[in-house]
């Protein structure tokens, strides 16, 4: 049993398994980009499910509309995570040992190494050895040893940081994964549409969409206390061709002090790439649109003013759609419901159909369909962007310019008073992202080290002159080994050999062979 477990473990931490898991990870991510994903776009998923019937439901059962939150995607990266840890721990231990160990003694026959050379020197072995050490410099870790017969050997090694970089990269990668997971737990996001002149506070109830991480959902962390008191002004600037060139939201915000009182109001401008950064929370400008204002004279003669958020249905021309719901006396069936569109730069398609030709506001048109009856027949909360027409009867329609009024047969009038812009804002909180940036930087640094530093071994055997033979030189034989990424080691070694020969005081030119025969 233990043997099987050990075998399975060894297989899990093998490079081969890691490779297969990497492929699975890449493969598993593919449907996440090709199929609509719930966390990104739930309405698209619903549309896909409607049009694809049983096949669509089958994909849903496999979790393919939330690939990156699915159990099998988690299974792959968790296995990879475990495999990585199992591989890293022994390697870190090994590397620590290697760092502490002295370079290995010189092999007997240096000519047998992949690269080798030999030359003569006029110096005594110890004198040459120190000259060689000096020329190799501090990048090499060098150990000098003595062999019988006055022979001096040098063992030199460099490029330890290659493995150090490699380990830094992988440890940073692991830390990044942990930080991402922790960040998910402790994060929250809220988004809200704010009409110009209005504001909101950072609390779950004031958001249109609130996406808390587990800890925020369980109430372990509360949103930071601050309020965007008011969206003072939203400005959209366009080029002549209708391309957006700048979006800008001027806001006034205030932090709530620890004693519960409001801090001083502060003015700030939020643009697309420049969120408002408060300690731990960021406030983003995500989107914008129009909120037309109308005045309605109700069937009973009372007058109501209203302003409703219209949602762009065409992203390039910002033709927008929305609804107004004006409640009359309860149960009198005298509510007024208005569905309509807002064309910022109206264009008549002929036969009275209006569309928009550009996102800039230029003498806009509000097209309305007016209904009478009960706007909220079941008393439940319902969408503010469309009408529930089950208890409504259409009583008229009109296209209005600003200031124009339309009168229905029963005396109801609707006036298009004007419009204000709205901005959709998002508040994000993720306590780990600063640390994550640090881990990411460590990843890149480690990666550069592990891919550019080369591990090299070099040995010198310095044999003294033979005493009986007058004038015979000291012989230096050099051998080299590329322990990783041989690259162009042949040229590299030739260069080293030249340098080593250069520091020898030679009487006669003594290069026997620059290469292995």
């Amino acid at each position, binding site marked *: 049993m233990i043997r099987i477990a050990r075998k399975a473990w060894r297989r899990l931490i093998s*490079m*081969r398994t*890691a*490779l297969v898991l*990497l*492929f699975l*990870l*890449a493969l598993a*991510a*593919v449907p*996440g*980009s*090709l199929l609509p*994903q719930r*966390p*990104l776009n739930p309405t698209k998923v619903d549309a896909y499910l409607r049009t694809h019937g049983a096949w669509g439901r089958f994909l849903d059962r496999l979790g393919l509309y939330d*690939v*990156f939150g699915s159990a099998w995607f988690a299974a792959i990266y968790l296995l990879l995570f475990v495999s990585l840890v199992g591989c890293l721990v022994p390697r870190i231990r090994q590397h620590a040992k290697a760092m502490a160990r002295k370079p290995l003694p010189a092999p007997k026959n240096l000519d047998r190494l992949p690269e080798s050379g030999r030359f003569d020197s006029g110096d005594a072995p110890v004198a040459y050895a120190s000259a060689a050490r000096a020329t190799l410099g501090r990048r090499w870790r060098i150990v000098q040893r003595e062999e019988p017969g006055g022979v001096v050997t040098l063992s030199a090694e460099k490029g330890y940081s290659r493995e150090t970089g490699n380990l830094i990269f992988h440890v940073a990668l692991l830390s990044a994964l942990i930080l*991402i997971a922790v960040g998910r737990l402790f994060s929250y*996001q809220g988004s809200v549409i704010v009409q110009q002149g209005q504001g909101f506070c950072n609390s779950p109830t004031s958001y249109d969409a609130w996406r808390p991480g587990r800890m925020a959902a369980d109430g372990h962390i509360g949103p930071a206390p601050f309020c965007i008191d008011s969206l003072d002004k939203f400005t959209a600037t366009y*080029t*002549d*061709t209708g*391309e*957006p*060139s*700048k*979006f800008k939201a001027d806001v006034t915000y205030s932090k709530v002090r620890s004693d519960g009182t409001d801090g001083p109001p502060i003015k700030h401008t939020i*643009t*697309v*790439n*420049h*969120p408002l950064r408060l300690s731990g929370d*960021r406030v*983003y400008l*995500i989107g914008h649109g129009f909120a037309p204002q109308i005045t309605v004279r109700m069937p009973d003669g009372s007058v109501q003013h209203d302003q409703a958020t219209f949602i762009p249905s065409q992203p390039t021309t910002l033709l927008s759609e929305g609804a107004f719901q004006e409640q009359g006396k309860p149960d009198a069936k005298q509510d007024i419901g208005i569905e309509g569109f807002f064309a910022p730069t109206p264009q008549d398609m002929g036969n009275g159909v209006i569309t928009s030709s550009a996102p800039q506001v230029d003498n806009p048109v509000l097209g309305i369909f007016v209904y009478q009856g009960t706007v909220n027949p079941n008393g439940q909360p319902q969408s503010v962007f469309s009408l529930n027409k089950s208890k409504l009867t259409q009583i008229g329609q009109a296209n209005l310019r600003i200031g124009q009024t339309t009168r229905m047969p029963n005396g109801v009038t609707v006036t298009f008073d004007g419009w204000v812009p709205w901005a959709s804002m*998002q508040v*994000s909180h*993720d306590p780990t*992202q600063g640390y*994550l*940036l640090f881990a*990411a*930087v460590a*990843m*890149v640094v480690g*990666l*550069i080290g592990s*891919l*550019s530093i080369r591990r090299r071994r070099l040995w010198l055997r310095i044999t003294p002159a033979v005493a009986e033979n007058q004038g015979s030189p000291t012989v230096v034989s050099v051998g080299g080994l590329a322990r990783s*990424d*041989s*690259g*162009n080691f042949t040229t590299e070694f030739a260069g080293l050999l030249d340098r080593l020969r250069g520091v020898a005081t030679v009487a006669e030119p003594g290069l026997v062979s620059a290469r292995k025969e």
Partner: protein
Amino acid sequence: MAVNSGMAHLSDGLFTTAIATYTLAMATYTAEYAFGRRGRVAATSRAEARVLVGAGGPDVEVPASDLEVLPEVPAGDGFGRPASNTRLDGQKRVAGERFGRIAVALTILGATVHAASIALRGIAADRVPWGNMYEFSAVVGFVAVAAFLGALWRAPQIRYLGVFVMLPVILLMFLAGTVLYAKDAPLVPALQSYWLAIHVTAAASSEGILVTSSVFTMLFLIRQRYDVAITTPDKRIRFPVSMGARLPSPETLDKVAYRTVAFAFPIYTFGVIAGAIWAEAAWGRYWGWDPKETWAFIAWVIYAAYLHARATAGWKGRSAAWINLLGFGAMTFNFFVVNIVISGLHSYAGLN
């Protein structure tokens, strides 16, 4: 509007000039390849020492076995193929050498014109000149050429392979100039950030280098198939395997392919991280599995697998090479299909 139409026109003109110069360079590389210093590798006898001419450097006598690790094939092999003489006659060698030098000169000229075109585009639009697919392709093509010139500097013996680098670059630039072309419009607000310069520069450079890597990987696969084919009796060698006859050793090709990935991968990683930092500022989160992000992740994982595979017994060589090509496939998909077909936040193609 900060768009200078005169500059933009000049930039377009230079772009076309660059394509033309590259095409000339490609033709000249082809001439060098044809008059090549290398005959049929297969027929080379092992013992025969061959002369490797470094660009501008001294001739180095290298035993054949060090240059090419060859299967044991006797000269005048018994497979019905004549042994051709690799010692090219002097005239042909000189011609090949001359063509090679002209080709490199043309490549450098083309790259200079290309760089000028990109720079003028930036001046015309008053922003970094890689805000849409046309401009991005132009930068990727430029980096691919620069990467080849860089590889040439380290390994001059690959010069005659220039044709294989110029071909995809010219194709890409042709696509850029026709299908992907977009006018030099100012940037939409989401792209108005200095991160555009950082993130997209990293992405374009790493992708350009990876184009070069994939070219050498394909050549490696061809050369390997060729080596197998010539040791198999009665096997007809057809195009493209037949090209293997004039390619450098599989070891050299594999090494160039690996070193280019090893160079590009940290840049690519940095590019993805820079993208995440920018996304945090622009979209409210550093990672959101937008299709572009997803495919960047997929390509990153595949290239990571390539680097691991190359160090794993049983995956080295051919399997690793296919992984490299798979990574390139994911990257290409991310550029063309994700930008044009799949909608997402990175819809900056400028195509409508």
